[in-house]
């Protein structure tokens, strides 16, 4: 840049020198040259920032989606543990090994995932701490229920009810709150792609316009048609800018596909599984309540409907086969549950309990839903994670490329203006 002398004579003197430097045609040429160079540097720098910011935002989006899956895993594990604990009581006597394993597995997964989720996002740590405390009390109450149960004391059933209430009142609400927060975080970081695209277009238009204005002015003053270095600078900026735009648009498309596709399906499957386990708990509690379980049956109806709705695509989107399979398995279970209720309502309590436990029809149907939905969820959450990673994959490279090209273009622009200045003298 043809900077004015900036040594330390009195202020007025400096202003005079500065005015001289930009006075007359060569001065204006210098000023315009400085603008062109600045425009190229700004392009490189700002495009780099835009690209890397978008990369970070998509990274955050993926991290929040992963955190969302973790929190849903905690919720699922808790309702799974509770479904197993209540079912064990329904069986009576010593609980079957697989039911005990299901309970222990739920508690262990919940505890481990709580630790993961707390370290993954410090914002969630406080709420997760409360869940952790509820989990500890819950496990204590279930153990008290078992200890009483093993001695043949019916007070065990009271401990079990209290434990189940604790999960519903202290553990699930903060997790539900976190899920909502993570979902809006995923959405807001995904909007970053739209913003980045718009900003890059604006930047490109401004930079190219200032380069063109420079050249038009030079043309008017010097009657030279083309200044090769300036033309080259403009061309480089245009090409790099368009390439950058293309990549950002592609990333945005991929991210939005991932969000509409596997991510939405992940959320749907996780919701369906949570509601599904909750329904299974409600079924057991209805039978444990032995004829006065209307409140639990109402809960069954509302959560099983929630699960079905979650697996039914809303609006134009269509879910894939894994979701359709899960929905079908859920329908089979809900039908079997209807027969459990019918048996209980006509006085065949033992038949109803048989169906809802062990190898009974309703219990097997629920097992089918559990397996199908678990596999579908694993598939979709891996897809969502891969797709979001894929969407951001070229962003860092193109950001650096735009930075380098911006700097090279700035150098070329400076040379072009210097050339004209020399000719003018």
């Amino acid at each position, binding site marked *: 840049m043809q900077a004015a002398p900036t040594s330390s004579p009195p202020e007025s003197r400096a202003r005079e020198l500065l005015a001289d430097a930009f006075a007359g045609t060569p001065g204006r040429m210098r000023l315009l040259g400085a603008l062109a160079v600045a425009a190229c540097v700004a392009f490189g720098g700002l495009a780099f920032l835009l690209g890397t910011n978008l990369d970070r935002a998509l990274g955050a989006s993926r991290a929040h989606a992963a955190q969302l899956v973790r929190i849903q895993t905690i919720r699922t594990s808790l309702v799974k543990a509770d479904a197993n604990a209540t079912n064990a*009581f*329904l*069986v*009576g*006597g010593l609980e079957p090994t697989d039911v005990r394993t299901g309970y222990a597995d739920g508690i262990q997964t919940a505890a481990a995932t709580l630790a993961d989720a707390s370290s993954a996002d410090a914002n969630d740590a406080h709420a997760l701490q409360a869940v952790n405390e509820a989990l500890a009390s819950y496990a204590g*109450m279930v153990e*008290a229920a078992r200890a*009483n*149960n093993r*001695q*043949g*004391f*019916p*007070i*065990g*059933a*009271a*401990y079990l*009810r*209290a434990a189940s209430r604790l999960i519903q009142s202290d553990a699930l609400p903060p997790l539900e709150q976190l899920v909502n927060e993570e979902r809006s975080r995923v959405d807001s970081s995904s909007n970053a792609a739209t913003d980045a695209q718009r900003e890059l277009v604006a930047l490109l238009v401004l930079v190219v316009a200032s380069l063109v204005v420079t050249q038009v002015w030079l043309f008017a003053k010097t009657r030279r048609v083309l200044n090769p270095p300036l033309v080259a600078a403009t061309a480089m900026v245009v090409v790099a800018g368009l390439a950058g735009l293309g990549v950002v648009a592609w990333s945005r498309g991929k991210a939005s596909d991932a969000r509409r596709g596997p991510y939405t399906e992940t959320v749907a499957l996780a919701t369906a599984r949570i509601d599904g386990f909750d329904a299974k708990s409600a079924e057991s509690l209805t039978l*444990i*309540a*032995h*004829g*006065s379980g209307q409140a639990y049956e109402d809960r069954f109806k509302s959560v099983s409907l929630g699960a079905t709705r979650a697996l039914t695509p809303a609006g134009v989107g269509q879910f894939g086969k894994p979701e359709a399979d899960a929905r079908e398995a859920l329908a089979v279970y809900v039908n079997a549950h209807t027969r459990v209720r019918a048996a209980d309502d006509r*006085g065949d*309590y033992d038949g109803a*309990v048989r169906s809802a436990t062990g190898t009974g029809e309703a219990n097997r149907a629920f097992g089918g839903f559990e397996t199908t939905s678990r596999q579908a969820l694993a598939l979709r959450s891996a897809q969502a994670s891969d797709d979001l990673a894929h969407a951001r994959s070229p962003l860092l490279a193109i950001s650096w490329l735009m930075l380098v090209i911006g700097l090279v273009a700035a150098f070329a622009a400076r040379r072009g203006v210097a050339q004209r200045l020399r000719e003018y003298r």
Partner: protein
Amino acid sequence: MFTVLIAAATALSACDSGSSFKPKAAAPVTSTTTPAATRAPNCGDPVASFAPSGPRPAPGPMPPGSFMETIRKRGRLIAGVSADTLLFGFRNPVSGNLEGFDIDMVREVARAIFNDPDKVEYRVLTYAQRIPALRSGAVDIVADVMTINCARWAQISFSSQYFDAGQKVLVRTDSRARGIADLNGKRMCAAKGSTNIDNLKNYPKVITVGVDDISDCMVLFQQGAVDSVTGDDTVLAGFVAQDPYAKVVGPPITSEPYGLGIAKTHPEFVQFVNSVLEDVRANGTWRQWYVKWLKPTVPAPEPPPAKYGRAL
């Protein structure tokens, strides 16, 4: 065949009641009906029920139009019971079956109708659900440590008394309290919808904690969330059997006569059940149940005598 027992002492036996409620007039069994409204709040002697009339029909077809016939046609008796009152009505965690003194009582009624004690569908009720369940027809009979009193007679009918319990209080074994009066300022748990919680109104300095099921009280007690639990000595005896660090103290603050609850619309069923209870008292079955369920923990060597005289 069952022998029909018509108590000779029927009509006027209410006079020797120890209850605070004295009969206004012991109406003869044959008198015409009295409007329901005149029985509340003063219902005469609360433990006086409808006397059995005539020979009880043998198991099998019941008199046409009677509620017993409705039950027989349905194929099962629907009984409201407790699932967590050890000794009276509880779900045996080992077998998964409902057992206890009250359950045996219900099975005996089923036997009298079907000649098969297993033809019972149980509905587990909280205390507060008992009267609504009878009034809505959701259950035919309630056998759930239910105290007979006038306020309840205004809403449902009762069989003759089958057990005489009293409200006491359960505390930690290291407590120095000798009764409810020593527990002012302490938290005391009772079941909502029970006479126990109503009686606590006479002890305004005790901090009352109400829960749906009295066994929830025991959870709170074992976790230190309440200092004591109040309930009938029968129910508390069941809790002490489940917790070696709990004891029952104090003289009973009330008398809680238990009866089987039946909807007001079926007096013939009350008479039928009373006739079954006559047999249970007379043929040693009551004594057998007492030994089986209650003997070591609850003192009540003899069944309370039946009292009749309530007008149909």
